[in-house]
């Protein structure tokens, strides 16, 4: 709870409680004082193009900027780099050696576009996207009630997967998440994930947290900074924050009880469900005396009030309509910005969920065109991915700027860390399969079943490497326990051996020539062939160590422990 709420609070400058030095610092950093005359929706959005953009159009817009800023774009990625990048971006998995080699050998000039289409149509894309958005939505979850927390992750992922598979639009998905009903049960950890977004928060501060996450996830706006005082660096007023919160003012949660086992037995709680509060309105606290509160009616950020609605569901339906309305620029732009950020490493707004009328952006006109295109296709998710990935901008080689925090201004891809799921898949693909042992640790409430496997290596690994996908990529840091896991973990190392029924043993048997074997090890781990220098060094290593098996174990270990292994480049 502390970690996720801390991330929210960490973005809020302590304007009112800071010493005078703090207030000066705020003024220096945000010279544009919040201006009530700045429109919430850019005026040009009304007349934005109603046709989908083409990749060439986006590239042209960017080219003008690069020329004006006198920047040179990085060269195009090689086929070998492209195939690894695209597989990771769309399926979250490194391509197999066979997949990689087949792509490189293919002589079709359209092969890149075809590969993008093929992967977009795959189930793996839906699954990958579902995991990503599950993390985006639950990274800031504040409810740690075990009955909610255990099923929430898998249920939300499953629901999102089904929506993406059914090719639902982002508009529909967003509306469904905001108007969800029902609940989550420990014993049914994949059912009714539609409530997963709302169930990220529960009880005491749920309304406030739900409003904050609605703005952050669907509009890219960090409105929670305006909870206690007017937002220090954007136009949001405190009143607006609380009026947005009022949309959730009648939503509460109730426990779901299991059937009593026998006579006189206490009923066990097996889950929680959303429930409507029949009476009472959301009350916002007075700024100076938190004990005084005022009832607040819901009003959207644009100032629009919903039609008078008495039920909680009607209210949330109205909110969903406002959020996903075609005239709401931020709805379209937030998704487009995040996709651009996911695919190139850096969004036009950084962090990707810190947008708004007064926030700084790189090339906002390009984002504008992407957002218009997204709207014109009725928020077709695959369409947007197809558009971005067929640009020259997406297909540039990767590099970091002079300072890790520098924005590359779309001249190159920024290398980013793989998510915990992606990294585990890379490990499993290079070293797997792992022998299924009994899961260690007690099963969670609800007995065995889906919980037993949860405490094994895969679970531990994912917990260790997990991070919030919305933070800036240069702020994702490694830790000593992560290094220790890859360096020393007994189970992982057992799979790196050159003897027994391991991937390495098979490679060494199938490829008695060292060069071929080295190549295969590289393809299995990094999805590419070694460079001439790397090949020389590996050959040298085999000679130095003297024993082929041991030398190759070292090489495999080095590749799994390399920076590149964890990086999407």
């Amino acid at each position, binding site marked *: 709870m502390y970690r996720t*709420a801390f991330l929210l609070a960490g973005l809020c400058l302590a304007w009112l409680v800071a010493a005078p030095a703090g207030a000066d610092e705020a003024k220096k950093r945000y010279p544009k004082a919040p201006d009530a005359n700045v429109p919430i929706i850019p005026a040009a959005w009304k007349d934005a193009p109603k046709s989908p953009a083409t990749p060439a159009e986006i590239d042209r817009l960017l080219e003008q900027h690069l020329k004006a800023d006198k920047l040179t774009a990085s060269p195009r990625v090689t086929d070998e780099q492209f195939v690894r990048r695209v597989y990771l971006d769309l399926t979250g998995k490194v391509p197999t050696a066979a997949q990689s080699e087949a792509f490189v050998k293919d002589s079709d000039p359209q092969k890149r576009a075809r590969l993008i289409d093929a992967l977009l149509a795959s189930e793996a894309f839906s699954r990958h996207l579902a995991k990503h958005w599950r993390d985006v939505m639950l990274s800031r979850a504040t409810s740690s009630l075990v009955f909610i927390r255990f099923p929430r992750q898998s249920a939300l992922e499953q629901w999102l997967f089904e929506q993406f598979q059914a090719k639902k639009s982002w508009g529909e998905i967003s509306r469904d998440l905001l108007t969800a009903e029902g609940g989550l049960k420990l014993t049914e950890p994949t059912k009714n994930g539609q409530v997963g977004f709302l169930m990220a928060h529960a009880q005491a501060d749920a309304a406030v947290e739900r409003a904050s996450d609605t703005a952050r996830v669907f509009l890219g706006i960090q409105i929670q900074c305006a909870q206690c005082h007017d937002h220090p660096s954007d136009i949001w007023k405190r009143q607006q924050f609380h009026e947005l919160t009022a949309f959730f003012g009648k939503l509460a949660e109730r426990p779901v009880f299991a059937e009593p086992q026998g006579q006189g037995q206490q009923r066990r709680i097996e889950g929680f469900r959303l429930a409507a509060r029949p009476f009472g309105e959301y009350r916002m606290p007075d700024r100076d005396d938190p004990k005084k509160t005022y009832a607040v009616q819901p009003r959207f950020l644009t100032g629009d009030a919903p039609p008078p609605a008495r039920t909680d569901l009607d209210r949330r339906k109205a909110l969903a309509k406002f959020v996903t309305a075609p005239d709401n620029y931020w709805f379209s732009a937030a998704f487009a910005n995040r996709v651009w950020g996911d695919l190139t490493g850096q969004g036009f707004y950084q962090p990707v969920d810190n947008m708004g009328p007064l926030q700084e952006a790189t090339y906002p006109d390009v984002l504008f065109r992407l957002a218009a295109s997204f709207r014109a296709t009725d928020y077709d998710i695959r369409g947007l991915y197809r558009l971005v990935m067929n640009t020259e901008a997406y297909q540039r080689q990767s590099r970091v700027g002079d*300072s890790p925090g520098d924005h590359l201004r779309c001249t190159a891809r920024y290398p980013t860390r793989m998510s915990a799921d992606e990294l585990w898949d890379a490990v499993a693909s290079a070293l797997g399969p792992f022998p299924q042992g009994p899961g260690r640790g007690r099963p969670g409430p609800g007995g065995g079943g889906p919980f037993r496997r949860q405490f094994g290596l895969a679970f531990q690994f994912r917990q260790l490497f997990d991070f919030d996908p919305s933070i800036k990529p240069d702020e994702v840091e490694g830790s*000593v326990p992560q290094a*220790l896991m890859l360096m020393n973990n007994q189970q992982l190392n057992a799979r790196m051996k050159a003897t027994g029924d391991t991937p390495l043993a098979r490679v060494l048997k199938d490829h008695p020539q060292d060069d071929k074997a080295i190549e295969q090890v590289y393809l299995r781990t990094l999805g590419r062939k070694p460079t001439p220098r790397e090949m020389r060094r590996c050959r040298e290593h085999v000679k130095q160590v003297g024993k082929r098996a041991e030398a190759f174990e070292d090489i495999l270990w080095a590749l799994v422990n390399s920076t590149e292994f964890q990086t999407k480049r």
Partner: protein
Amino acid sequence: MPIHDLFLRMTRGQLSRRAFLRTAAAGAAGVSALGWMDAVRLQAEELRKKGLSCILLFMQGGPSQFETFDPKPGASTGGPTRAIDTAVPGVQIAEHWPEMAKQMKDVALIRSMNSREGNHPRAQFLLHTGYVPSGSVKYPSFGAHVASELGSPDFDLPHFVSISGGGGGGMPPAGSGFLGMQYAPFVVQNPTRLPLNTELPRGVDEKVLKRRLGLLDDLEKDFAEAGARPKVEDHRALYGTASQMVLSPRLKAFDVAQEKDALRERYGKNNFGQACLLARRLVETGVTFVEVLHGNWDTHQDNFERTKALSAPVDRGFAALVGDLKERGLLEKTLVVWMGEFGRTPNINGRTGRDHYPRAFSVALAGCGIKGGAVIGATTKDGRNIAERPVGVPDLFCTLCKALKINPRKETLSNAIGGRPIKIVDGGQAVKELFA
């Protein structure tokens, strides 16, 4: 050449190579920075010889001062909590702390702590760093500063360790910020077990590990040159720290099972007690800063029963720690700090709970020259306000710096745009009455 050379010989690592080059490129700023760093380096070498360390016992959630070190029996706000006498005549603490009462001659109290942060994450950050969270500056945890100032660069274990002491206590509220990964807290999830993956796997010994690390270094070169150099360097530094730890003969300091059973009993056979024991072992071995997180003290409901349950292991562990350190002659060199992010309200709410109260709360200190038995400041009879000698968070941090012989005004280049220097503590004055 000389500048570059001198820098590389600076083993403190406070300034990353990249940041230094940025400053040097700024021309005049680079030249004056040289003189400043020279002075810093000399001071650093003196400090290292002192061998001081710090153990922080952090009660997450905001422990009630009424039910710990500032009881108000008889007042309408005091609730059912009674007060007991301690080894220091005239000083009483809450009834659930009998072991600490016996230890009081070595412990000082500040009853007049106050801050303006009543929000958990912000207040935890404030009480860990001395600053409120900022979007532009990554303030380091005080532990990271202490590790950076006092940690010996030859030391092969992490300088800063954070132990989860149970009761729901979790992740450290602040990391090493702009001081970098070298001073990041190493998190121990379970004090009764060796940290995971610190044993070399079967078939791998020190020779093989070193051979592998050498190979890894070489194989990263092309990736670094292809545009990922800073990431490769960070990765290498991380692996350096991790492998050093694994190969260290001092790694067994993490194994509390090596202690006699009777001593383990004395600390209490629970996660908090064992975490305190682990903390003692770690500082004995040379770790500079150890924090033990315990929670969850956020008693908005059922305050009295819950605080009683929470106090039991902490009373025992804290007292055992101070006693054990004293018996081993380590208390003069080890600063022990007990605190939470704020206190709790004098008013008892409708759920028999107390809510957040940063206006007046308590902190306990021992060791490193702190005057045992001293009580600084006081609250009014009903505990609503500070009656005398208010102590703010910067004052507290200056006091900790004084005990550890660290200069609170020392500046370090931060990550803020332009590399703005940030002091260890901004403002505040040490509480002189705590020192002889």
